[in-house]
């Protein structure tokens, strides 16, 4: 925004044709460009400091929620503590684009904010795979969830199709076992990390979809299966939530949905909480 304003100023000055204004305008532009480059770099670095390293316990993972329910106990409570929230796309990848200039990568960040608030209100810790307009790889995003204990993964999307005002929850399609399921080493192959969690993912997906269907008419009653790249490498109960759609004329129509979507996801994850038992998962993380 800042860039646009200053650029317009520059153009106006250049149009006057006066040499001194010319130089003044150019210098201003250079200053603006330098300022933006510097602030852009620091913006890109900021979120990485929030990405916790694998060894960090979930309590310290999120600096923005220092006083959570778990802060008084030294070890995390067994079971579901943490939600890894994934605003899809970002950076050069805009995702779905509407005719009105609505970009999936921007909308999902706004939705993430609302979902995060609702989840934190329910006592969950939340980690985001991205905080700004950047594009971590599919594997980077999965890695953030795979490094955590007792986490679920929720990927946020806005579609270019579907009845506007509806929300669909997706679970990864079945991944038939290769070489009898787990590798001889007992490790889960990265390429199909989702396989042992599919049952739990379906359960989580149905809970969230059930809550969404109450708030958004026309949404399906249960989660659907799709071959989603992001979910395949995620070693946790994982769902993708897709909101329809970027083709709405007014961006406000989507903004109005955000609190409802956040509330439904938070309730769905809360409903799922008792079903989440780490020890019961074949090939579950230690």
């Amino acid at each position: 925004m800042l860039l646009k304003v200053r650029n317009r100023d520059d153009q106006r000055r250049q149009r006057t044709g006066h040499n001194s204004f010319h130089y003044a305008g150019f210098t201003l532009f250079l200053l603006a460009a330098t300022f933006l480059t510097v602030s852009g770099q620091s913006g890109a670095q900021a979120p990485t400091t929030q990405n916790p390293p694998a060894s960090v316990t979930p309590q310290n993972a999120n600096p923005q929620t220092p006083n959570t329910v778990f802060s008084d106990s030294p070890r995390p409570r067994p079971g579901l503590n943490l939600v890894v929230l994934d605003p899809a796309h970002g950076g050069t990848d805009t995702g779905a684009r509407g005719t009105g200039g609505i970009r999936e990568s921007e909308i999902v960040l706004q939705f993430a904010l609302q979902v995060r608030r609702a989840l934190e209100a329910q006592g969950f810790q939340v980690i985001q795979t991205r905080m700004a307009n950047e594009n971590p790889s599919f594997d980077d995003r999965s890695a953030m969830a795979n490094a955590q204990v007792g986490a679920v993964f929720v990927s946020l999307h806005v579609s270019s199709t579907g009845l506007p005002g509806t929300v669909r929850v997706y679970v990864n399609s079945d991944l038939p076992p290769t070489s009898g399921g787990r590798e001889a080493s007992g490790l889960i192959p990265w390429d199909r990390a989702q396989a042992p969690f599919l049952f739990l993912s379906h359960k989580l997906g149905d809970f969230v979809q059930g809550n969404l269907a109450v708030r958004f008419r026309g949404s399906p009653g249960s989660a659907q299966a799709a071959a989603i790249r992001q979910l395949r490498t995620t070693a946790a109960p994982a769902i993708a939530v897709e909101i329809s759609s970027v083709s709405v004329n007014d961006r406000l129509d989507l903004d109005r949905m955000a609190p409802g979507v956040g509330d439904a996801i938070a309730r769905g994850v809360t409903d799922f909480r008792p079903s989440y038992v780490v020890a019961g998962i074949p090939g579950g993380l230690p």
Partner: protein
Amino acid sequence: MNTRWVGMVLGGLFGAVIIAGLYFPILKQRVKQTAKIQPQSEEQARRELTQSLTANPTEARVNAKLFWASNAHDGSLAPVSVELPLSNEPALRAKQVLNTLLAGPADPELRTLPPDAVLLAFYLLPDGTGIADFSEAMASSIPSGIESEQRAVDSITRTLAASVPQITRLKILIHGQEVETLAGHLDLTGSFVVNPRGAQAANSAQPDLLTSSSIRLEPPLTPASTSRQTYAATREQPTNSR
């Protein structure tokens, strides 16, 4: 000094207006000509398409089921019966039905694939794995989203399942390359189940057919898993990843 400048600029502008005025009729004519050419070439393209389908007069005309979007606009697919002359050779037959699927239904709103996408090649491996190579438009023109991408792949696999029973699985390439996703969401690194029963039969009959190559068959699917659109990674798994 100043008046001379203004004079020169005005003179230049006047000259430009005269040149533009002379050039305009020529430009208009050219636009008319290209407008005439375009529908012809489109028609030609369609004729070429149908010609390739009717190339062999001995091919029997059969009712093929093509899966386009349903009238309900709820994201589901509905089969449409189209009488087509289809070859008995599975790879050619697959090409014929996919080309018809790409050509689209009578109502363009019910398309599942982008209108500018082209099937570049179709291969059928001895184990029943079909490999469909689409042009880049398949990935770049499709509306990005889980729903739209899954529907596109579903329409391809279900259409193939209905007309070419020999195909057990389908691998989708974009311009000859394996790509990670179709348009940012749907996983194309693995292969999609087309005929689950055929996959079982092919598996038991020729279990070690392709173990030396990079493509390996999955074990038979359980009936429960085949009820959904099933996906399987066919990559070789690393044995010692960590």
